[in-house]
């Protein structure tokens, strides 16, 4: 049973953590895709920017969280979301809108977003330096260890405070997004524009408004994902560059332009990663005695080492592009 607890910690908890991050990230990417029809490479750095805003605010007001009984970083998150949303709208106005107005091919916007990626990275490193920093400036990171009341179980299930915040906020974001897209006038207009931009325009929907609303949502979600990731590990300026591939893989697995698919895709990629780096020998070890003699299991039965984790989303990406390029939920655009 202790081996199974090990499995829960290393696969279920870890997979839910990265799955949540990828899911929120992939929703942002897929929203940009469904409204503006291009792969937004700067998304991961918007995430970093959001986390950086939280870092800056937390450093400036380290005790602000005490009044709420929460870590300061979490209290500062709404402000960071607003700032990142503002940044996203500004970036669009300054860099993407002129390109769109020129009627360029989507791939040119992709390259433009790579330029924006570099600019954001440059700005963040310029101010934050290149090293890692802890977002828990003045607070202590709580770690919860729960020993399940089962016979012979000694290994506890370990969940940290930021992970709990992550799960709660992921759920809140998903529900809020669902309500927004299905109940609100602007949300429906967004779906309409994603479905049929010309007709949306002919119905009197102002394209510019929808684009701005999209960026506000995308920026806010990016700030949430970036902050919670940085809370769970540490803040690093190049943190999210390595998130690009899993996030895009998640968006494509879910079917590009399909927000719910992106959420599912995020968890698929997250769990695939943790399952691939998990050493299966741990689970098989208790049954070692019942194996035939000729079968000697190697001590390392992980599919890939943690240093090759990036292979997993790539493998998923290639597999889905070969067998089902529209994704599991039939996205709109291939």
């Amino acid at each position, binding site marked *: 049973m202790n081996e199974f607890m090990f499995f829960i910690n290393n696969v279920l908890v870890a997979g839910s953590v990265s799955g949540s991050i990828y899911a929120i990230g992939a929703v942002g990417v897929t929203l940009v895709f469904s409204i503006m029809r291009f792969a937004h490479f700067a998304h991961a750095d918007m995430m970093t920017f959001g986390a950086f805003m939280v870092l800056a605010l937390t450093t400036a007001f380290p005790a602000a969280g005490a009044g709420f009984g929460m870590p300061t970083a979490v209290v500062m998150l709404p402000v960071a979301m607003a700032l990142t949303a503002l940044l996203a709208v500004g970036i669009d106005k300054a860099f993407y809108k002129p390109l769109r107005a020129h009627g360029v091919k989507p791939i040119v916007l992709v390259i433009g977003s790579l330029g924006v990626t570099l600019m954001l990275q440059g700005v963040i490193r310029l101010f934050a330096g290149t090293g890692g920093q802890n977002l828990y400036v003045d607070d202590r990171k709580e770690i919860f260890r729960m020993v399940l009341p089962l016979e012979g179980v000694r290994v506890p299930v370990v969940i940290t405070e930021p992970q709990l915040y992550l799960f709660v906020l992921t759920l809140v974001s998903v529900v809020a997004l669902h309500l927004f897209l299905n109940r609100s006038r602007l949300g429906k207009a967004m779906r309409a524009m994603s479905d049929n931009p010309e007709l949306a325009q002919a119905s009197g929907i102002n394209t510019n408004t929808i684009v701005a609303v999209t960026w506000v949502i995308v920026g806010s979600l990016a700030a949430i994902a970036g902050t919670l990731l940085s809370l769970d590990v540490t803040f690093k300026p190049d943190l999210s560059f390595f998130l690009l591939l899993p996030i895009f893989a998640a968006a494509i697995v879910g079917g590009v332009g399909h927000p719910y698919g992106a959420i599912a895709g995020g968890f698929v990629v997250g769990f695939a990663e943790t399952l691939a780096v998990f050493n299966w020998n741990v689970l098989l070890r208790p049954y070692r005695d019942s194996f035939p003699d000729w079968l000697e299991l190697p001590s390392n039965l992980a*599919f890939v080492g943690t240093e*090759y984790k990036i292979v997993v989303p790539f493998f998923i990406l*290639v597999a889905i592009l070969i067998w089902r390029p529209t994704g599991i939920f039939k996205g709109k655009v*291939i």
Partner: protein
Amino acid sequence: MNTPTASPNEIAAPRRFPLREVVLFAILLVAVLGVYALMGAAYSTRMLVEAACYAILALGLTIQWGYAGQFNAGVMGFVALGGFCAMFFSIPVNDAFWNTELPGELGRVLLYVVGAVLAVVGASKLDRLGVPKKLRSVLTVILAVVLYMVVISALRGVTGEIESRAGFIGGLGLPAWVGWIVGGALAGGVGYFIGHVCLGLRSDYLAIATLGIAEIIKAFLKNSDWLTRGTATVSPLPWPTPGPAELGFTLSRALYLSVTALIIAVIFFLLHRAYHAPWGRMIRAIRDNEISSAAMGKDINRRRLEIFVLGCILMGIGGGVMTTFNSLFDPQGYLPLNHTFLVLVMVILGGPGNNLGTIFGAVAVYIIWIMSEPLALFLMQLVVNLGEGVFGWDFPANMESRALQARVLVIGLLITLVLRFAPKGLLPEKIKHHG
């Protein structure tokens, strides 16, 4: 909505005298001479060789992006592959590895790999023997997982042995140019795989996939200590030309420069021929109007794949030449900024699809890039002094390392500005109107 995109600079009228080219290259020449005067011959020649290596990479990217509209966001990966091959073929043979039974062991594992692949492929064809398709798929997946585990465990064993007993497997002791050619071929092979997967999909997908493969190649080279010594790096790499020890820095580098110049000349000539041949016309027709070319019965995907693979081959060769010149193989030294985005700036600034413009862009951007390092430091110091003196700001200590990050910002800004204000580059591709 769709505004008419025909602006005056797009329709380049046939010119009698290439005034623009001459002026731009004259400015470039002055800049190069300026660097020679300021920094000395040895430094400046090194800069030129590196710029020439970048020109090879940029030519690879310009045919992918400029000829065919395919965007490769993982130039770095192909450069690293070329660099690895240059290292592997040129460094001396490691007797500590070859004199043991380890080569045999490694060969045995490689045979396992081949056997496992054959078994899985065989299993995937079981439906032809009457096995139901679902069962076949399940069997294939289970077999693949089990065999993968067996092979990877065997490989982990052998490579661990190699690392502990021989360090790494060493090289082949062949001339560097063999490695360059094989590196080009290897990069082309990887390009074929990626291009094949993304064939017929939106070009965004190719960008994502190349970005991924580049990181994977880097991760592999960085972590495969048995093959590349990983973070311990390999040096010195022998040059195909006499090294600095025999000729001194300036002369040996000048000799190397002539080799790279020769390579560029050959590539340039061949591309020029191909561009004006029916093949090149077809490529451009496909890029400019995909639908009508498809209607004319042209095999679009085939041509695109050819272009993409060709570009990757050039990147592999360029990476090999570059790594040999640096005389150091360091997997961590391959950076998206230096080896993907810098090349991208060279291409879009110089003129995508225009080979001469691309070479101009490569040399010009590289000079700016190299010279911006001291400039960034200087500017940063200025800001710090100003900030402390006038506003009383308190700056953190490591401003120097941060100053270099300002270059990242500048590269990003340059990309977006060029896309917006000079989408055809400084030397636009001359669009010849057919017939």
